[in-house]
């Protein structure tokens, strides 16, 4: 079983590399001079989608090998869930790709999936046993449907982002330019997190503190990055480790805040470096890629993804969720933060559809809504687990 688990990890690694290679081919396809309309058959794109399919098969291999090794669907902690979400994102991309044959989608969708897998890998990757509340067939049913729904909805973000990169006139400045640049900056922050976490993990950095928590009990915490902020009445146990001695309120999760500060720091440096070297906005760097994009098509793809993803998300995130909650937690709804954020996601996309269907919010506005929707999904995926404690905060 341990061997199977290790094969599984290798397969995920292979999938990651293949997605990376496929991205390059998709980028080649839109650069190709022969293809001005960005759709239809194209050799670069054919190679790109083939590699994507092999990568997806490899990730499926990771998923089922791990399932067999663990004896339960590998969607039970943050690493597994976010990885699965990335897999569903690739699946959603493949489906949408075969409907619309829109090459440029691959140039943006695959990097988002790559970044998602990299982000997931920063969490503990051990195979963990299931606590009693998770021991149910509904684990696989509920979680996979939610992830699939959120992933399909995320494709609308990808389409929306490409739309905005082409649609917004960067030379004019203004609010839209600022927010578009902010979205890209947010993505660079995630890169900053992955980068700093990987560097310190490779360097083997670790330190420990004792501290007094909110319940006035003395506890030990681990830091995996040099401590820029320390916990309440924290005392460094590890010799030679770095500490600023800047103490935080007991309610603040100091090591987590520390990680956030590092990520922002590295992200900002990264961003400034890009700006300094290129002497352009990050959004401007993407413009050659999107020059030939068909706005009408992107708008349609974005809307279509919401239409396909919304029912799937509703089914998994609300209906299956309620059925399982009734079985495991005695009530179908209990205002747990994760439940509330699923409701918020549902309400948001309901508003999106009403604005689109009845008030004619298309194109630019629709693209912005898709971006906001993705921010809400990410918040529910990540922040609710890490910041707001609740019944769902496993791992």
């Amino acid at each position: 079983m341990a061997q199977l688990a290790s094969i599984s990890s290798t397969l995920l690694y292979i999938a990651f590399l293949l997605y990376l290679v496929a991205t390059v081919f998709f980028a080649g396809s839109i650069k190709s001079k022969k293809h001005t309309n960005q759709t239809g058959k194209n050799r670069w794109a054919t190679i790109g989608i083939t590699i994507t399919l092999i990568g997806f098969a490899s990730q499926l291999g990771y998923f089922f090998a791990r399932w067999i090794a663990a004896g339960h669907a590998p969607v039970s902690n943050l690493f597994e869930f976010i990885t699965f979400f990335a897999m569903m994102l690739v699946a959603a991309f493949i489906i949408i790709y075969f409907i619309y044959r829109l090459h440029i989608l691959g140039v943006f969708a695959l990097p988002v999936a790559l970044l998602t897998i990299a982000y997931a890998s920063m969490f503990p990757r051990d195979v963990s046993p299931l606590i009693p509340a998770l021991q149910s067939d509904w684990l696989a049913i509920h979680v996979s449907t939610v992830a699939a729904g959120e992933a399909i909805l995320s494709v609308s973000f990808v389409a929306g982002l490409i739309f905005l990169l082409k649609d917004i006139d960067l030379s004019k400045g203004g609010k839209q330019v600022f927010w578009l640049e902010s979205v890209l900056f947010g993505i660079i922050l995630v890169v900053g997190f992955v980068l700093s976490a990987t560097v310190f993990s490779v360097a083997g950095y670790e330190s420990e503190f004792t501290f007094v928590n909110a319940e006035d009990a003395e506890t030990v915490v681990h830091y995996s990055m040099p401590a820029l902020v320390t916990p309440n009445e924290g005392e460094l146990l590890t010799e030679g480790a770095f500490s600023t001695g800047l103490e935080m309120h007991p309610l603040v999760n100091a090591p987590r805040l520390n990680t956030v500060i590092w990520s922002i720091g590295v992200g900002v440096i990264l961003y400034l470096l890009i700006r300094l070297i290129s002497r352009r906005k990050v959004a401007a760097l993407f413009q050659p890629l999107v020059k030939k994009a068909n706005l009408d098509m992107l708008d349609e793809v974005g809307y279509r993804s919401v239409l396909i993803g919304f029912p799937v998300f509703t089914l998994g995130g609300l209906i299956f969720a309620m059925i399982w909650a009734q079985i495991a937690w005695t009530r179908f709804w209990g205002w747990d933060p994760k439940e509330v954020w699923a409701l918020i996601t549902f309400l948001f996309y309901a508003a999106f559809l009403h604005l689109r269907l009845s008030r004619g919010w298309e194109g630019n506005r629709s693209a912005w809504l898709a971006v906001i929707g993705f921010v809400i999904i990410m918040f529910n995926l990540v922040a609710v687990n890490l910041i707001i404690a609740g019944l769902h905060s496993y791992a």
Partner: protein
Amino acid sequence: MSKLICKCGHVNPEGSELCQACGRTLTEEAAKRKTNDVMRYEGMARRSQTYHTSIIDKVWNFFSSVKVGVWLIVITLVASAIGTIFPQEFFIPQNIPAVEYYEDRYGIAGKIYYVLGFHDLYGSWWYMLLVAAIGTSIIIASLDRGVPLYKALKKQRVERHDSFLKRQRIYSAYEAKGSQDTLNRLSEGLKKRRYKVRVENGSLLAEKNQFSRWGPYINHTGLIIFLIGAMLRFVPGMYVDEMLWIREGETEIIPGTGQEYLLKNEGFTLETYQEGDSEVFDETIQRTGAIAKNFQTDAILYKKDDNAIAGSTDNITEVDHHAIQVNVPMKFDQFALYQTDYIEDELYKMSFTMDSKETGEPVGSFTVDLFNPNTSGLYELNDGYAVEISGYYPDFSGFDDGEPQSVSPLPNNPAFLFNMISPEHPDGEVAFVAIQQNLEPLGENDYEISFNGIETRDISGLTVRKDLTLWILALGGTIFMFGVIVGSYWNHRRIWIKTDADSNLYAAGHTNKNWYGLKKDIAPAFEYAGLDQPDDHQELKESKGNAKEEDESGTTREHK
């Protein structure tokens, strides 16, 4: 009430935008509006767009507005998010008053949160009002649109006026192509694509998936049923939420069942994963420590016989016998019992020995059931020795005026006043015994009592749940989901073809969404009929910006 009489002679109700017979635009405002906006409800008169005078009109118009509906959704969304900033009142520890908890823990922000009532946001009157407003909006907006839409789609005419065709997004005019043969071929090709085709006087109407237009109205109906189900929770008798704490070995009446059912706890089990259970788990167990594997109460369910006396546990019949686990509730009648909590190792029995101080040897031993101590009789030991409990203080807290006190009936800290009877002291010697405390209040004794072991048992915390609203919620949820799927995964597509006396052919297409799909869908039929694909005017409009690239690629748009 005024009527709008179209040039074709058809009389349309006031407020109509398109003639329901020929499709001509009836008013100047309608002519200026985008085709998509006009087509959304087939240009039908809607109450909210027609009447604006009375109070009822105003209320109706307010709630029928999608703009208002979206605002209501957004406000609810933001309010819901605020409710997750700090934990809600029902998540905080029960032993601290909320007013103190929020301020102590979260400072001034917590205080503001509490004062504004956000600690019970989802149960607040204004949150309920928001949900009710959304419900009202759903009903009114659906009636305002659904009814006219239904009427319009049920009595569609095949032939439409040129102006109607011309303003569609998909539209082309084909000069001198309007032969009967072309029309037949189009009809055949569209039928192959499973369009329902009607042909009248050289005009053709092909339509498919009209039912998808009802998706929103179906899902709104489901939502309303769901909301009604949620309200029924508050009707007495529909909902039971009780807690049953039951000790191992005990039989208790299940609260909420009207004294009808009893449960026996045959034993509570808590299992954790052990290293070696499965080698793949070892690293996690080493990193995080013990991980729970199972919480289980082995339970027997009894039903009281008809002749049983209220409150007694006699005359009962076993109904069910199985383990209650997390995710595996015990279901009976309309109830379900859930494993939700436990207390481990509550003191149950205490064993003592009576020792002779002189020899240090025990003269006998006895066991006290802490829940049912024998206070009226004697614990008989051998050879004329016996012990009598003259005082029992299950939750001993100290002395008040020389009298031992107990703060609760639970054996958290049991203490006893024993009377030790021996052949030397037939009237007994008095000893006060508590945990790590041995007093001889009436003078030096010859004998003493010492602890000789304890027996503990676990307490299962079971939630008793009855929810008669579940089936309504399930019904509403199913209808809702069905409606969402119908509305999202199918599209209403229509093609109008018209031929005129000069053998010109006009083709127009409309769909409520997924234009790309519509174009792909009708392409084979046009090809089969030997016609170019009809133009998508939205695309053309956009392509103007890309004119240079169009030239480079060598494609031009032209029609024969």
